[in-house]
């Protein structure tokens, strides 16, 4: 194929473009904002162009590969490459980050640093999703932690330092295990460290060692994903972060955990995965119920949405661990779909907060009359989040259900139990989402503030929410948009489990 280093450009472009921001003359924030948005859009368009011309959808192998030796004595390569599975998250990253920069336009304080950090995150995330090397994966994993920490601790809410510290401790703690696992895999059975995914995928380990590695990776990804009981950083972080950061956190960062779970745990350690998956399914089912029933007890709006994200992550875990074609497809679809829906919900909650300056649900009420547009979009997205048919969330959950039903790994009784409990989550979800809507918008309540008139969302906010809404509905009507990307790759991944 062509040898043009597309992926390297995608990884390097945002951060290098971002570092140019510091060279700008002091002439107001406007230039910086436009510049950042320009870079984001340019990157997104470039990615779309490159993928549509140089990426074959029906090829399950790694494509657009690049392989440069980076550190000589260490045998460390700059290896990039994408396949059908990582294509979706990369495009999602581009899309959500662009919208997040657009959503961050009200930010005026220290906007140089802010926008640089956004672009740095962009690079880190794309680098993560496209890296084909364990050590590079780890480096990218760490690279995107620092911008999040700074974004959180500088532009957050009142308790931002507490949440930022909690975030960095949790994730850095998880990264230790990731590094240990990576080094372990690389050093096993040879004197030279080998970090390449493909060589490690073809290697087989003693079962005990494999389980050991698996646990290490699992802890790292469970923090990020999050899987209970390692989820408590998430509500705090989401509750305090600025909403543009929240969009990135909910839309992309959480997906990195799920991505790693498939990319490393499933592909590299198949035996351990089939040993662990029943337990993980139980954890996933518990997570759905647990988070969905914690959520109604939250007074803080953003925390409530954050718990709903935790609950939805449960479906991804179940899909990944069902070890069936459909389950994994459903998990990928859920990754994409929740990326859109979660980001949009946090965005809308943030814009609502900008206007009424209240975070507690029981202080709100009757906002529908003054802000009909926010009300409309918020209702539609809440309905999407509770898996209304015609939206993407429904399909993802349905296919995960089918994955469990058709999976050959589990017995009838356990299947019945799992589906039953998952479906209970389906009852709990509307309870907290709709009561959130009711408390915010419905009813009639005069605010104590003398000036109780709020602006409805302007064209920028409307644009952001509609442009998230369109793919949500589009996938809901025609889920093959996402399936066509991932079907072949999923089959290739799963073939490991059946033909060994």
């Amino acid at each position, binding site marked *: 194929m062509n040898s043009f280093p597309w992926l390297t450009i995608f990884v390097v472009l945002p951060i290098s473009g971002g570092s140019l921001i510091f060279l700008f003359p002091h002439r107001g924030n406007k230039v910086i904002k436009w510049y950042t948005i320009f870079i984001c859009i340019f990157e997104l368009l470039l990615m779309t162009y490159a993928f549509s011309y140089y990426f074959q959808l029906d090829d399950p192998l790694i494509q657009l590969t690049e392989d440069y030796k980076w550190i000589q004595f260490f045998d460390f390569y700059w290896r990039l490459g994408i396949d059908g599975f990582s294509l979706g998250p990369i495009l999602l990253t581009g899309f959500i980050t662009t919208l997040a920069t657009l959503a961050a336009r009200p930010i005026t304080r220290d906007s140089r640093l802010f926008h640089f950090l956004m672009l740095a995150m962009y690079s880190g995330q794309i680098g993560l999703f496209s890296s084909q090397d364990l050590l590079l994966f780890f480096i990218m994993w760490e690279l995107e932690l620092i911008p999040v920490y700074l974004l959180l601790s500088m532009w957050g809410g009142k308790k931002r330092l507490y949440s930022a510290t909690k975030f960095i401790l949790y994730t850095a703690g998880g990264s230790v295990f990731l590094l240990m696992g990576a080094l372990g895999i690389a050093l096993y059975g040879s004197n030279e460290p080998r970090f390449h995914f493909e060589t490690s995928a073809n290697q087989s380990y003693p079962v005990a060692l494999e389980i050991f590695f698996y646990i290490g990776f699992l802890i790292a990804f469970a923090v990020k994903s999050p899987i209970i009981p390692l989820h408590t950083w998430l509500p705090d972080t989401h509750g305090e972060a600025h909403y543009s950061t929240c969009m990135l956190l909910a839309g992309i960062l959480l997906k990195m955990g799920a991505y790693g779970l498939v990319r490393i745990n499933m592909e590299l350690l198949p035996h351990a995965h089939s040993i662990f998956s029943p337990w993980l399914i139980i954890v996933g089912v518990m997570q759905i119920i647990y988070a969905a029933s914690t959520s109604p007890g939250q007074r803080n709006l953003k925390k409530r949405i954050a718990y709903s994200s935790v609950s939805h992550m449960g479906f991804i875990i179940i899909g990944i661990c069902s070890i069936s074609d459909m389950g994994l497809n459903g998990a990928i679809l859920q990754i994409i779909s929740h990326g859109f829906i979660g980001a949009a919900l946090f965005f809308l909650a943030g814009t609502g907060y900008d206007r009424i300056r209240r975070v507690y649900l029981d202080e709100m009420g009757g906002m529908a009359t003054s802000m009909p547009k926010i009300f409309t979009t918020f209702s539609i997205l809440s309905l999407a989040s509770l898996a209304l*048919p015609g939206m993407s969330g429904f399909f993802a959950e349905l296919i995960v259900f089918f994955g469990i039903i058709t999976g050959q790994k589990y017995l009838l009784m356990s299947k019945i139990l799992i589906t039953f409990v998952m479906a209970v989550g389906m009852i709990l979800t509307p309870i907290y989402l709709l009561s959130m809507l009711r408390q915010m918008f419905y009813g009639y309540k005069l605010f104590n503030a003398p000036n109780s008139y709020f602006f409805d969302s302007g064209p920028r906010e409307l644009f952001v929410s509609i442009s998230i809404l369109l793919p949500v509905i589009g996938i809901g009507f025609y889920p093959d948009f996402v399936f066509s990307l991932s079907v072949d790759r999923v089959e290739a991944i799963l073939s490991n489990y059946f033909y060994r």
Partner: protein
Amino acid sequence: MEHIYQYSWIIPFVTLPVPMLIGAGLLLFPAATKKLRRMWAFPSVFLLSIVMIFSIDLSIQQINSSFIYQYIWSWTINNDFSLEFGHLIDPLTSILSVLITTVGILVLFYSDNYMSHDQGYLRFFAYMSFFTTSMLGLVTSSNLIQIYIFWELVGVCSYLLIGFWFTRPIASNACQKAFVTNRVGDFGLLLGILGLYWITGSFEFRDLFKIFNNLIYNNQVNFLFVTLCAVLLFSGAIAKSAQFPLHVWLPDAMEGPTPISALIHAATMVAAGIFLVARLFPLFVIIPFIMNLIALIGIITVFLGATLALAQKDIKRSLAYSTMSQLGYMMLALGMGSYRAALFHLITHAYSKALLFLGSGSIIHSMEAILGYSPDKSQNMVLMGGLTKHIPITKTAFLLGTLSLCGIPPFACFWSKDEILNDSWLYSPIFAIIACFTAGLTAFYMFRVYLLTFDGHFNAHFQSYSGKKNSSFYSISLWGKEGSKMLNKNLRLLALLTMNNKERASFFWKNTYQIDGNVRNMTWPFITIQNFNTKRIFSYPHESDNTMLFPMLILVLFTLFIGAIGIPFNQFNQEGMLLDIDILSKLLTPSLNLLHQNPENSVDWYEFVTNATFSASIAFFGIFIASFLYKPVYSSLQNLNFFNSFAKKGPKRILWDKIINVIYNWSSNRGYIDAFYAISFIGGIRKLAELIHFFDKQIIDGTPNGVGVTSFFVGEGIKNVGSGRISFYLLFYLFYALIFLLIYYSVYKFII
């Protein structure tokens, strides 16, 4: 003929552009879209009438030659799994699509006037069109997944429309309740669908039935599991059709605008459960236990609904309970295996109940002008009465609807209900006795509604005696925005509703007696009557506009004549054989009738007449009791509590009073079921949420926080230790040296 079927996939999608356009318009260009207001009603009616013509044509085709047409597209292509999207045209579909479109058009027409002053006029039409889209999609769907999709979509439409007036706290509670209750049913439906897929590997109805039959025939299935799946599937129908354990949402759903109650919560959406059971009838038939369960749930609902309707004050609520009871009849008929009777009752009931609801909407519309915009008042039957004089046309229509629902012979519901009652005698005498008794109850409560509303004196002037001081939010304003102004300046209340037509607001409230064509508009601003209690001029309700009366008249025609499609006209064909040619039987394949194994002699006129006389006499008995109790005593105060009229009757009146009190309490407390749910489920979930939140915060989050705090203190301690003073270090050094020496010494001693 073929080509009609070919294009029938378009049925659900014709009305889809309306909600899409209105929605986009309202989001992007709100001002321009709102200016076009009435213009939007036209395309929605127009498109729906296209669908109506189309579906009538289809059903004529179906009558002529009953054949099932199915067309399928593949939707998602996965390796071992493909979802399909298709449409299935069979008699059931054609009947329901005609029903939906006819009632839908009439209701759209009606609501053009009913909602004309509402700020949410456009939103209303968007929701309505979206509802017809999804309902038509539901009835034309060809597989279970599609059914589930549209099932949820109609649920969401119902949610949006119940919460249409979202500034009312009650409405917002009601819509959430409706959605969550329906979701409980959907939970069952989804699990049932998944279970069936697991058993048969298919979603398509016809494949499904075929495979399932084979499996049953070869005895290859686990009966427990199959029954479980069927029960789960049925629970979807229970929730949607407001059957016994999950009926609680339907009465609350009456918070929505009245046209919605007519279309969704009486005629079409609540019939979706019946439709589902009818669609899966071939499946349910081979699992005998489930049929008994359906019949049992049906009869419980029939009885419960009727008893709960007995003492409701709110006119719409009593109609809602009556809907529930009638849906129970249909479920009962399905459970007994008389498919035809159930569908017949579905059709007749839909038209009669739509008529009744539109009639009640017209009454409410008239009463609102007098009593203010509060469902506590304008829908309160205690405050009505004597409306015959003021709104004669509505009265006639309402009376005809009432008579039909009671089962008085020439009207529609008589034919179907009679059929169900007859069949119930064949099925089980106990069920039949309950069903017949409930038929009497139906007549009783329907006439109670009628008499309280239209007979006697106009009671609205007694609203101050009604015991409730209304200081609720409704009395402020519907849309709330102008409410605060009103509190400051009482006389500014004419600006309460932001009307499109500004000139209407210029009428002053004293002009109520001005008699011209615009009385309706003029009296509208009376929303906050109680501010004027002292100087109010008594006014009387007025008949609604022609736009509202016209659909009611059409529905009256339907109520009069729709029974004809199920009446068997005996005719002799060329060979001189008795031929049964009622339209409904022609449509519905006779193989589905379980009870009448031999359709040739199903028409026995003598038997028919005796049965009909029996059921009609029960109805008349109910009417008689009702008129005995509720015939106004010309002392309006006594009308308020219906057992007051017994005050001077008979020596046994204490016992009688007690019985009546029990019934009254049972009914007005909604059978204590709502309270039970509120305590057990809602309270339970709240407690659980608090408990888990506590657990999450204290234990799961507490652990890392605890670790953090501990490490902080340890760090502080160490910092203190390493504070940098030489003497401190020396002390430590000496101390440890001493300890070392001691240990060394003791060990040394011990060894020696």
